[in-house]
C-alpha cells in the first residue's frame, strides 16, 4: 500500500498542545468546511484536542457569531453553521429561491408528527393522519427537511424518518428545543410505532 508522505497517515497525529485560540480557529474552519452538522467527537478526532477544550471553543464561537451574518445551530448533539435570519432575504435573492413554495397542510402535519416523534415510520404517520402519506414524505425528503436515519425492527424493516438540520434552518430555529410546545395525547401504543 503506497503511503503518501505529506497526506495524513491512517492514524493521524493531530496538532498537539493546542492553545485555546488556535483550537477556536480550527473548530471554526471545521464548522465552515463541513457540509452538514458535525459532533464534538468529529472535531476531537480532526483536531486531537480534548472534549472540554472543544466545548470551550464552541461556546466562544457561538458567542462570537451571535450578532454576525453566520449562526451556529445545534442539531441533536451536532453543530452546523448557517446564515443569520436577518440575512435570509438577501440570501434568497442570491440563491435564486422564491418564497412561494410553502409547505402544504399535508406536509406540515407529516412534518409535525416526525418532529415530535422522531424517529418514526411511514406506518405510524399514516396511522395518526388516517391517510396515505407517501407524497408528503417524498416531498419533505426531496426538500431535505427529513431523512431516513435507519430501519425499524418491524416486518419489512421500514425506514425510520427524523428531521434534519435543514428542518431547523427552514423554520429559522436554532435547535429542536425551540419548537412550539406540544400538548400531545401521546402516540398510540397499538403496534404501529
Amino acid at each position, binding site marked *: 500500500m*503506497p503511503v*503518501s508522505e505529506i*497526506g495524513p497517515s491512517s492514524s493521524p497525529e493531530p496538532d498537539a498542545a493546542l492553545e485555546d485560540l488556535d483550537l477556536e480557529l480550527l473548530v471554526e474552519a471545521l464548522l*465552515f*468546511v463541513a*457540509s*452538514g452538522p458535525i459532533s464534538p467527537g468529529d472535531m476531537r478526532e480532526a483536531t486531537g484536542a480534548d472534549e472540554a477544550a472543544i466545548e470551550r471553543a464552541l461556546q466562544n464561537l457561538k458567542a462570537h457569531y451571535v450578532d454576525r451574518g453566520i*449562526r451556529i*445551530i445545534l442539531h441533536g448533539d451536532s453543530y*452546523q*453553521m*448557517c*446564515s*443569520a*435570519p*436577518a440575512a*435570509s432575504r438577501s*440570501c*434568497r435573492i442570491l*440563491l435564486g429561491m422564491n*418564497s412561494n413554495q*410553502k*409547505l*402544504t*397542510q*399535508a406536509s*406540515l*402535519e407529516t*412534518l*409535525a*408528527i416526525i*418532529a*415530535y416523534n422522531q424517529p418514526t415510520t411511514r406506518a405510524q404517520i399514516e*396511522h*395518526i*393522519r*388516517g*391517510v*396515505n402519506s407517501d407524497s408528503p414524505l417524498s416531498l419533505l425528503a426531496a426538500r431535505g427537511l427529513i431523512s431516513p436515519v435507519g430501519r425499524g*425492527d418491524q*416486518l*419489512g*424493516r421500514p425506514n425510520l424518518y427524523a428531521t434534519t*438540520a*435543514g428542518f*431547523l*434552518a*427552514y*423554520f*429559522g*430555529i436554532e435547535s429542536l428545543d425551540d419548537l*412550539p410546545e*406540544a*400538548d*400531545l*395525547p*401521546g*402516540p*398510540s401504543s397499538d403496534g404501529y410505532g
Partner: protein
Amino acid sequence: MLGTWRTGTAASPLAEFNLELTSFDGPFDLLVHLIENQGFDITTLSLLAVTSQYVSYVETLQRKSAFAEATAEFLAVASQLLLLKSQAFLPSQTNDDEDISEAQSLADRLRVYSAYRKLAGELDEIQLSEMPLFPRLAVPTGIAPEIPKNWQDVSDLVFAIEAMLEQPEENGISVTLPFSRFSLKQRIDSVRDTIARVREVTFDVVASECGTRMEVVYTFLAIMYLVAQRGVSVRQSKAFGQITISIAEHQD
C-alpha cells in the same frame, strides 16, 4: 388558522357546509373539521352527530371518479361511522363493551390527529413569518483533493451493493416479498417484446399497464435485468425525469 378548504360552489350539495370536495387531507381532517365547526369537543357523541354530514361529503366525493383512490380511505371511515351509529340506535344485546371501545378508539385517534393538526398550524405560522437560515451549498474549497489512481477495485462497488441489499433476518422472521419468479420472468419477456417492437419507449408507458405498485417494481426490476443483460439501454436526462428505454446499441 390552518384550514385549507375553499368555499363550496352553489351547485355543490355541500354548499351548506362551505366545503369543497378535494380540499381535505384525508378522512380525519374532514371529521375534525366537521366536529370543530359545530363547536364540539372530540367525543364519541360528536362523532355520531357529524356522521350524516360526513357521509354526504363522501358520497359527493365518490361521484368524482378521479379521486377513487382517495375515496377508499374516506369510505372506510364512513362505514365505521355508520356502524357505530346503527349500534347507537339499535343497541345490540351483545358486545356492548366492544362497540363502545371501538367508538372510543376512533375518538382517541382523532384527538391525537387533532393535536398534530394544531402543531402543523403552528409550524405553518412560523413558516409564514419565516426567516430561514441557509446552510452552505458549496463543496469544500481551497483544499485540492489528491485522487490516487487505480486505488480501489471497481468490483468493490458491486460488493457494496450486495452488502446493502443483504437484509438481515430479524427475530427469525424472514420477509417474503410477493415476487414470484414466474411473474418477474413474464414481466421481463413482456418488456423485451415491447422494446423489440417499438425500439424505444418511456418507463411511464411500460408501467401504465401495471395495476399495483408491486407490478411497477417488477417492471423496474425487469428493465434493470435487461440493462444488465445489455439488451436495452436506459436514459434519464434528469432525476425524476422521464426514463427512456431503448434497444442497446452494441459497440463492436
